[in-house]
Each structure stands twice: as structure tokens, then as C-alpha cells.
């Protein structure tokens, strides 16, 4: 293994946790680690990262990089990749990382591996495909490779490194995309983050009217709230405020009952922190059964109404 370039991100004025996870990922691959930090007025953060695993840190510090900009990011990371001569470039699979990484790979004429959650020397990268139903091991055929890494897949690096910083000379005059603003999500009408019990429905619920008919009654009987997975919201069956997952609400109830939800990664990210998970799904291979403690392989339209009735009678 040759050298590895870690692309660190600044979030709320500090190096984000996922960037330290990239250092752990690099250590797993084995090889010399250098880094690039992008932002505006970030000399201090770059200095700190050099000592906490980043190694030699290339600093892309420019007012034009205060917010994510695809041309700016691609240019700065390319400059760092060329300066470091890295064989492997690691980015987090975040909105910035997934946006720029393939573009960078094409520019470098390099291979690209998306959303890896594990790796071993070789290098070989492991990632999910088919919405979590299968795993794939992917390897470069010889040249350089750009990899995005799933946030949270590895623990953050907590060791130290002997590093120094070097400011990159950048020409950021030709940026075509123009950042306008970041808008925070509107206040949620349904706050699932405080619910003790959540009963969620997925694509398997099949039709919008089945939510008030089948899912909501169980949630009500248990004194809990109703949630949904992304396909339900995308289809317009329920508003976005019901969505549990990486682009919806991240919930930590005492009990989460997943009905007709296969368990795509983006949903699992939003509910895996639940204390106890029950899954009801007709597909025995659904990934949701891997994360659930208790599972029922069967027809939710048979099980859920019976469960609702049994809960009601247990409550008297």
C-alpha cells in the first residue's frame, strides 16, 4: 500500500467526527496518511488535525471555500492529491463527499468505490448493494482509487500523529456553481424524536389508506406515534414529517415496530438507536431482520390488526 490522502471536512467550526473515522479507515488499509482540510479561516483546525491522525495536512483555506462548492472542492482536493501523490483518496460519504468524489475520480482517471463500510490491505473495499440486500467486495485493477466511506462505520481515530501543515496555492476564480444559502429544516409537525414507541410502515404497507387503517391504530393502542420509511413519503402517502431515516428524523424510542420495511441503510441509520426493535415483513431475507431483536416473517395485514386487538384487550 502506498500513500493515502484523507479529505477532512469542517462542520460547525471543527473537524467533523467522520473525518477521524477516515483516519481509522486509512490505518486499516495501511500506508502513509496525509490529509487535506478545506474551508475558510481554518488554520487552527488544520494544525490540530495534523497532530490527531491527519499527518501532513494540506490546507485549502480560502473565503470561496467557506461553503461547499463543487468546483472549489474538486480543484482543491485535486491539488492536494497531486501534491501528495496519493494512491488512495478517502472522503466521507456525506453530501459534500458523495458530490465531489466521483468527479475527482474522473478527473484523476482513477477508480471509484462508493460508501465503503470496511476495507483490508490490497486494497479491497466492502460495500452494500441492492439497497442493503447484498454485499460486494471491490478492488482497484491497478491504478489510483477514490473511495467514499460510510459515516459511523468505523470508530473515530483517537491516537496522535506527527504532522505539519502546508498551505495550498489555489486559483478559485472560475467557480461556476454559486452557493446561495443553507436552509435548516422546517419545524416538524410530528416530533418522533420524543416518542417512546413508534410503529412505522414501509413500502410493504402498499397503499396510503392502509396507514390510518392498519398502522395508526396499533400506534394509538400502544400510546405511541406513527412513522414511515422514505418510499412512503416519496410516493406522497404521508408527509415528510413522518419520515424516519438519514434524511428524516433520527429516533431512539424504547420500542420500534417496523411493518413492511425492508431495511435500506438510510432507514436503519434513523432507527437503529431504538432500545428494542420488532420487525414484521413477508421477506425472510429483508435486512431489517438483521437489526431487529424480534421478527415475524408474515403478512402484516394479518398480524398487525390482531396485535392491535390484543394490545387493546391487554390494556383492558
Amino acid at each position: 500500500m502506498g500513500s493515502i490522502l484523507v479529505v477532512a471536512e469542517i462542520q460547525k467550526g471543527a473537524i467533523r467526527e467522520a473525518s477521524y473515522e477516515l483516519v481509522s479507515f486509512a490505518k486499516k488499509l495501511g500506508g502513509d496518511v496525509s490529509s487535506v482540510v478545506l474551508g475558510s479561516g481554518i488554520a487552527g483546525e488544520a494544525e490540530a488535525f495534523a497532530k490527531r491522525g491527519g499527518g501532513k495536512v494540506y490546507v485549502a483555506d480560502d473565503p470561496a471555500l467557506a461553503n461547499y462548492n463543487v468546483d472549489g472542492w474538486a480543484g482543491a482536493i485535486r491539488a492536494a492529491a497531486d501534491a501528495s501523490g496519493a494512491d488512495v483518496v478517502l472522503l466521507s460519504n456525506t453530501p459534500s463527499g458523495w458530490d465531489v468524489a466521483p468527479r475527482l475520480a474522473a478527473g484523476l482517471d482513477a477508480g471509484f468505490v462508493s460508501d465503503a463500510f470496511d476495507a483490508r490491505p490490497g486494497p479491497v473495499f466492502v460495500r452494500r448493494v441492492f439497497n442493503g440486500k447484498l454485499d460486494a467486495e471491490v478492488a482497484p485493477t491497478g491504478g489510483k482509487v477514490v473511495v467514499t466511506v460510510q459515516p459511523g462505520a468505523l470508530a473515530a481515530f483517537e491516537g496522535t500523529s506527527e504532522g505539519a501543515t502546508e498551505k495550498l496555492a489555489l486559483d478559485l476564480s472560475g467557480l461556476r456553481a454559486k452557493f446561495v444559502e443553507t436552509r435548516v429544516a422546517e419545524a416538524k409537525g410530528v416530533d418522533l424524536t420524543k416518542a417512546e414507541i413508534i410503529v412505522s410502515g414501509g413500502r410493504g404497507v402498499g397503499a396510503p389508506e392502509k396507514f390510518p387503517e392498519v398502522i395508526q391504530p396499533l400506534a394509538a393502542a400502544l400510546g405511541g406515534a406513527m412513522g414511515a420509511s422514505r418510499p412512503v413519503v416519496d410516493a406522497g402517502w404521508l408527509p415528510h414529517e413522518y419520515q424516519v431515516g438519514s434524511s428524516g428524523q433520527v429516533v431512539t424510542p424504547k420500542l420500534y415496530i417496523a411493518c413492511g420495511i425492508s431495511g435500506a441503510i438510510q432507514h436503519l441509520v434513523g432507527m437503529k438507536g431504538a432500545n428494542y426493535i420488532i420487525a414484521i415483513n413477508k421477506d425472510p431475507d429483508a435486512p431489517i431482520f438483521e437489526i431487529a431483536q424480534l421478527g415475524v416473517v408474515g403478512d402484516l395485514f394479518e398480524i398487525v390488526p390482531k396485535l392491535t386487538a390484543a394490545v387493546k384487550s391487554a390494556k383492558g
Partner: protein
Amino acid sequence: MKILVCLKQVPHQDARLDVNAESSWIKEDGIKFEINSYDTFALEEALRAKDADASTEVVVASIGPERVTQALRTALGMGADRAVHVKDAAVDGSDALGIARLLAAVAKEVGPDVVLMGLMSDDSNASAVPPMLAELMGIPHATAVVKVEKTGAGFRVERELEGGALEVVDLPLPCLLAVQTGLNQVRYASLKGIMAAKKKPIDVKTAEALGLAGQVGAGAAKVRIQKIYQPPKGEGAEILTGSADEVVSKLVGKIKELGLL
């Protein structure tokens, strides 16, 4: 305005997934295929632009074997004007960069003002091709687009960030937009549309015709899947067995045990 929509045909989301003998991909024999869900939203967005301005031309492009004709006919039935089908066994085994090269060659012939496609595919889940294509075309791009608004000089788009936050970005023309699901409500092809689609042209291309002989396909791939397999089963869930009534009684027992009933 000319819009190029790139579509991928993928195994149906409910298709049974069996790993092939080489463990390199799934067995494709006998399973149903459909247009990648993300790409249907891209196509719908293009068709809405055409609805608003009849002078808009919508060209759809896809890569793959004969079965892909079905996906292109569906897109034409929904309202696209014409299609380009890259059909060539020599492109089998291409990685994302190979696919992006083919699409860039198609785009060069089409000359679009904007390229619309899905953020990722339901099979590879890689989100790789759109930014690669934009780089090869030398145009700016945005991914995870959840809103598109035409401005005087180009588009103002909203990108989905984490935790429901949005990033608003202005892009000039030409540009590439990779859209998130839920961007719009996707139409169905009408019977009239399907009939009309039969007369619409599908231009079939090979890698050689696109000037890419030897630059795509398995031999040119920069990355390769070594192995594909069912995720290792952890402890997983305890699966309840028995009649529906027995299962329900066990579930109630567990909920009581958790102190929630």
C-alpha cells in the same frame, strides 16, 4: 431547451436476488426489470419542462442489452421525444467511469443544455456516474437535488443535506442535475403515449461508433467486483413461529416484558 435524461434499467425492487455462479453479480435470467426509481423522477422533471415549453426536446439515453429497449419505450411512452440505446456486448463489465465515458460520448452528439439523471441506482447504489459524466463533459453539477427552478441564466436548485437541511445553489447552463427521489409525482405512460412511442426513433449505438472501442468494458475498468454475497448473518432477530394468534401473543408478552404495556 434540449434535455438529456440518462436512464438505467435495474432489477425490479421485488425481484429475487440470487448470486451468479462466479459470485460477480446476480443471476439476471428470468427476473423482471424496471427503470431505476431515481431516474423516473429525473425523466418526470424533464417532461414537466416540456409541458411548460413545447419547444423543449427530451432525449433519453440508456446502456445495456436488448431488454433496455423496454425501458426506453416506456420513457418514450411517457413523453420523451427520442432515445439513444448503447447496445454492445463490448461494454459489459464497464465500471462507472466506463459508463460515464459512453454517456459523455452520447451527450457530445446530443448537445444538451441540461443533463438530468437519478442520484443513484437501485442496484449498485453508487452515486458514481452523474458527477463523473459532468466532469468528462466539463460542466458543473449538483447531486441529491430535491427542487429545480429555472432562472434567467440557468437553474436554482435545492440539494438535500443531512437531517433535513437544504443547500440552495445556482448553476449556469449547461449543467448536470442528479435528482433525489420524491422530487415530483411521476406520471404513467398513457395508452395514447404508448401508441405514439412506437413511431419514435431509438438510435442504437456501439462503443466503436461512439469512438470508445477498447476504452470501456471489463478490460478498461479501474475497479472490479471481486465477490458479491449475502451479508453475513449476525445474531439477527429471533424469528417467531407458529400461527398468527400464537405470534401475536408472544409479541404482546414481549411488549409487557419491556414494561410498555
